[in-house]
């Protein structure tokens, strides 16, 4: 049970830090809304509704990147990550706590973005929403690990998008498919498969990424 207690403590810490700093979450909200407005101007008149769902997913991925880029910054500022790694708990709890906190931020940002999307562009049905939620899990799981990897090196702001975008392709395929395809369940299965495979992989390999 201490594992879950560790995870809960870390998640709570991240949420508190973000709420006090009041920078990441408002930034993500504003970014996703501005992006949607830009997309309105970027789409030519008479372009299909289906294109709008593609743009929604681009907006989601880049908003998530914005949040993830800031994910490990609090831990790096005072050597907190090293301290956390030295604690006697399982290191993967650090990853899980970070993933859950990032997930909360992403879901909150989408709680604003999705109604805005419906207002500006096109309706979203239940499978589309399920797709968004499933993809969020994948984005946060993989993104937290990759952000930790990128943080180990130089030019970390450059590295994270480079590492993350190829891995986000199946998520975008699944998300857009769930929104527009008649056979949406297959895309949801794809997203669930991605989540299962990469969450387990990230959970297992986090320890190797943060230790020497």
């Amino acid at each position, binding site marked *: 049970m201490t594992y879950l207690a560790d995870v809960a403590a870390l998640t709570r810490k991240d949420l508190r830090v973000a709420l006090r700093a009041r920078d990441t979450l408002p930034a993500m909200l504003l970014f996703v809304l501005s992006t949607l407005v830009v997309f309105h101007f970027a789409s030519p008149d008479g372009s299909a509704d289906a294109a709008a769902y593609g743009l929604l997913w681009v907006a989601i991925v880049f908003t998530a990147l914005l949040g993830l880029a800031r994910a490990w910054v609090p831990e790096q500022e005072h050597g907190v990550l090293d301290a956390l790694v030295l604690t006697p708990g399982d290191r993967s709890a650090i990853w899980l706590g970070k993933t859950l906190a990032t997930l909360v931020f992403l879901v909150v940002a989408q709680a604003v973005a999705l109604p805005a999307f419906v207002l500006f562009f096109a309706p979203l049905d239940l499978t589309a929403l399920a797709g968004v939620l499933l993809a969020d899990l994948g984005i946060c799981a*993989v993104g937290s*690990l990759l952000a930790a*990897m*990128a943080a*180990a*090196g*130089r*030019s*970390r702001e*450059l*590295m994270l998008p*480079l*590492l993350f*975008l*190829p*891995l986000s*392709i*199946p998520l975008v*395929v*699944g998300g857009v*498919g769930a929104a527009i*395809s008649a056979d949406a369940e*297959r*895309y949801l299965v*794809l997203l669930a*498969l*991605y989540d299962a*495979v*990469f969450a387990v*992989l990230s959970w297992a*390999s986090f320890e*190797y*990424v943060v*230790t*020497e």
Partner: protein
Amino acid sequence: MGLGLALAFFVAPEEAVEGVRQRIFYIHVPIALTAYFCFGLGAWKALLLLWRGDERYDLESYVAIHQGTIFGLLTLATGAIWARTSWGVWWSWDSDQLVLFLTLFLFYCAYFMLRFSIDEGPRRARSSAVYALFGVALIPVSFFAIRLAEDLVHPTAFTREGPQMTASMFTAFCVMWAAVTLLAYVLYRVELAGKRLDRDLRELREALR
């Protein structure tokens, strides 16, 4: 080695049936298969690194992925040439194999960016290893993702019923495949030796300073 390559290049031209442009199949498919194999080898070495902790696996994994990326670039190039002659376009988003390969190629290009951004040491070795493993996990997931749209254009020579070609063509293909695999192996050994030499030289320089 050279003999094997020469044989392959002379065997292939003997077997043209559908026309000259079909011959690129003998080069393109083995190179593609070898690229996948190199990525798999890189991931296997990466797993060994994380599992056994022996540092030499880092360099072996890196070289394998380097080879895989080079062969991947060749696959895309030869595929584009074939596409241009067969379909009239250099690229098509309709084929799932193309998109999967491009995704994988981009993924492994980012691998090098990752490696160059972290300073040498166990941290770099482990991060690279984890990333390489993510790559092979990406293959089936990407494949399934892209499979959800039907593959209409990329010709499939090997279906469930077996190779869809004459016996002589199949022989030529196998010879070529063996030759390309051998080429990849030789390049791998050469590059690995070169990189090890570089590293030893650097260590000696440091020691003598």
